[in-house]
């Protein structure tokens, strides 16, 4: 039953967005998030929507895949909307009991909901079109400047990719241990929350022991293949910018400038 879990929700397709360098996608997502939180005015909102729709269309990922991500944060969105609705000070439109609904409150609540939706859609476009490995590579390369000030960028990226490699193996192992313990009469299903958590102990202890053993083996196997940290390493699949990547950078920057222009000159009605 645990085998069905898929991590990273990569959606394989042959599109421009898929082919982009992961660094471009990381940068683009970051810029988009920034733009979401500093836009003002209806023109900017339309622009952000158009940009998002364009990217989604370009990625060839079906829209229902995106909506899946939204379901997870529905409650969070509701809570933020409710707080914004009732707790924003201003001219009360109507009120009942201690709760006041203001014009500003309605506006803030709507804006917040839109921002969160766009945020989730924007980031899921990145995870849907980039394999975890590409993502790690992109992160490593983009964060490389920080290694000068002592951040072990290569080690972090290596750890991430090894973790991704071992997740399915450990899930399978959990499944196996679970069945072994169930065969010995362990009960993982019944009881209250505390009891359920307690029943996890006979599952977690062997899992940890085996994970450490695997880590030990893997470290030795890596050493045997001359692994020596990041120094002097070459790359089998180095990241190289191509024409489309440069174009994408320009597009993202133009988009940001337009948003900022809207913020200064077309503030109506917010």
């Amino acid at each position, binding site marked *: 039953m645990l085998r069905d879990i898929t991590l990273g929700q990569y959606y394989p397709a042959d599109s421009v967005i898929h082919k982009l360098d992961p660094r471009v996608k990381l940068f683009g997502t970051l810029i988009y998030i920034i733009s979401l939180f500093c836009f003002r005015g209806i023109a900017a909102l339309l622009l952000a929507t158009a940009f998002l729709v364009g990217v989604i269309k370009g990625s060839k990922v079906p829209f229902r895949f995106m909506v899946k991500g939204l379901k997870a944060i529905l409650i969070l969105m509701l809570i933020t909307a409710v707080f914004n609705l009732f707790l924003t000070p201003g001219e009360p439109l109507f009120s009942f009991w201690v709760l006041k609904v203001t014009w500003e409150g309605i506006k803030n609540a709507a804006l917040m909901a839109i921002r969160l939706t766009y945020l989730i859609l924007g980031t899921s476009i990145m995870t849907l079109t980039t394999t*975890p*490995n590409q993502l790690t590579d992109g992160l490593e390369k983009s964060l490389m400047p920080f290694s000068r000030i002592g951040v072990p960028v290569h080690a972090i990226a290596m750890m991430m*990719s*090894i973790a*991704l*490699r071992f997740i*399915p*193996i450990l899930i399978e192992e959990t499944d196996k241990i679970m069945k072994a313990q169930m065969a010995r009469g362990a009960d993982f299903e019944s009881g209250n929350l505390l009891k359920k958590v307690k029943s996890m102990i006979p599952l977690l202890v062997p899992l940890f022991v085996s994970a450490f053993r*695997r880590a030990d*083996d*893997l470290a*030795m*196997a*890596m*050493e*045997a*293949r*001359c*692994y*020596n940290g990041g120094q*002097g*390493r*070459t*790359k*089998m*699949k*180095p990241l190289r910018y191509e024409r489309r990547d440069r174009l994408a950078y320009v597009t993202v920057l133009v988009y940001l400038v337009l948003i900022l222009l809207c913020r200064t000159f077309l503030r109506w009605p917010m």
Partner: protein
Amino acid sequence: MIKARKLVHEYIRRDEEGNVESITTALDHIDLDVKPGEFIAILGHNGSGKSTLAKHINALLTASEGSLVVDGKDVSVEENIFPVRQSAGMVFQNPDNQIIASVVEEDVGFGPENIGVPTGEIWQRVEESLRAVGMLKYRSHSPNKLSGGQKQRVAIAGVMAMQPRCIVLDEPTAMLDPDGRKDVIRTAHELNRKAGVTILLITHYMEEVVDADRVFVMDRGKVVMQGTPREIFSQVGKLREYRLDVPQITILADMLRQSGVDVPLGVLRREELVDAILKAAQI
């Protein structure tokens, strides 16, 4: 290729204050000579020190006493560690715990990446090594979807891509099913024949030893027997003393011999025994 003289390795257990609690001698004055291009098998029961020996050849462990030279390089010299690891590759027992990347070809490329091979050449080496082990069509697969034998062949390809002179296989078949076992052993023999790589196969399955050039038997940290497979298998009683399972065919031949049938010493294969029995029956 490999030259060990009076090699000693001791596992020292210490208590919390750092006092020596007990000393286990895993390797006890080992002398070993391997010529380039040989297929060597090392046999031994659990705890005979065979895995410890393997780790010495790859400079993963350092000796307490004695000397070890691999491909002309003294293993105990610090600067030689990486050159030694490059010229003597190692394949381990558990196929899952030695595959690093989540795509087959990337894993094979891991070794060359580490030793700084240029990108174009990495691709070339990856293709060659995957072809050599017969796994080229799985190059873009995830290792999780492969069988044990296939994973082990990928691991061998990963070592081959570093272009070693010698490969140490440390019980590569212990966790595999019979089919996977045959595949891995056949691959090792092919590499030995076609690419001229020296192979050191460490195992406790006697059947895998039959085609080796020379066999070493280890027990309690010592090399107790050495010779061609035929010489080794002609001493059934002695092998049993070292808690090794002799192939059934050899046992049968030995029993026939003892009961007076004219069968030669150290029969290794079924066909051989059939021939010998037919010959004995005609006379």
